[in-house]
């Protein structure tokens, strides 16, 4: 039974790391900070949650703590991204020329 859970956990863990790898690729390829934050936030959230789930399958005793860590990630990750994005915008970070519209700059002024 535990051997099967180990295999399943391993697979889930690997799928989590695949998302983290794609996130890293996104950070590298995206043209400006806002798109980079997008790539970073989503993939680290799902990637970390899958990694935690994989560990939970391998070590069922830890699952409650892992669940709480997952919840903590789920609530802090988007918040920190939002604050970073806002700070970047206020600080006049460069936006890629592909950007089609910026309502925030229209309402609040564009420092860049």
């Amino acid at each position, binding site marked *: 039974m535990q051997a099967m859970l180990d295999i399943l956990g391993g697979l889930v863990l690997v799928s989590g790391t695949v*998302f983290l790898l*794609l*996130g890293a*690729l*996104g950070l590298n*390829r*995206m*043209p*400006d900070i*806002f*798109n980079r*934050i*997008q*790539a970073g*936030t*989503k*993939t680290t*959230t*799902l990637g970390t949650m899958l990694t935690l789930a994989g560990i939970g399958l391998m070590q069922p005793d830890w699952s*409650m*703590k892992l*669940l*709480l860590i997952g919840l903590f990630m*789920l*609530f802090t*990750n*988007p*918040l920190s*991204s*939002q604050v970073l*994005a*806002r700070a970047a*915008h206020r600080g006049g970070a460069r*936006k*890629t020329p*592909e*950007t*089609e*519209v*910026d*309502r*925030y*700059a229209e*309402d609040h002024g564009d420092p860049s």
Partner: protein
Amino acid sequence: MSKAQISAKLFITLILFWMLLNGTFALDSFIVGVGASLIIVYFFRDSLSFLSEFRFTPQALMATLSYVAFFLKELVKSNLRLARIVLEPDLPINPGIVKVRTKLKSRMGRLLLANSITLTPGTLTIELEDEWLYIHWVTLESADIEGATQAIVEGFERHLEVMYG
């Protein structure tokens, strides 16, 4: 809601987290948890917790379950879409920052909405200002307020409206 009620809800949330994190019901760890929670409640009694402004009705609990299911589905979808964008050689993006409006009135409901939007396909909340949210969108579909609100906000709002109002 009164000050005492808010403090009580924050205290319950904290002590629940403490108990789950410890995984034991031993008296000594419980007492330490109560002490720590009381100190935190004293300093942060004006801030939000999950339970503040939550409506304790059967409908709200059902909405919470369907919200979680919807959220997880959107999270997976957003990752797959991002993976496709990142892996494509010509990086097909057309970003923009749009403005949307929410019907939600409660602070916690708005906070959860902003967080959910950040974790769902191609959108990132930049600023939350009263009922207005500014959202960075990797694959812009609609630049006007109504269109963007419908595409980004309404899926979550349906659930959160029942939970928090």
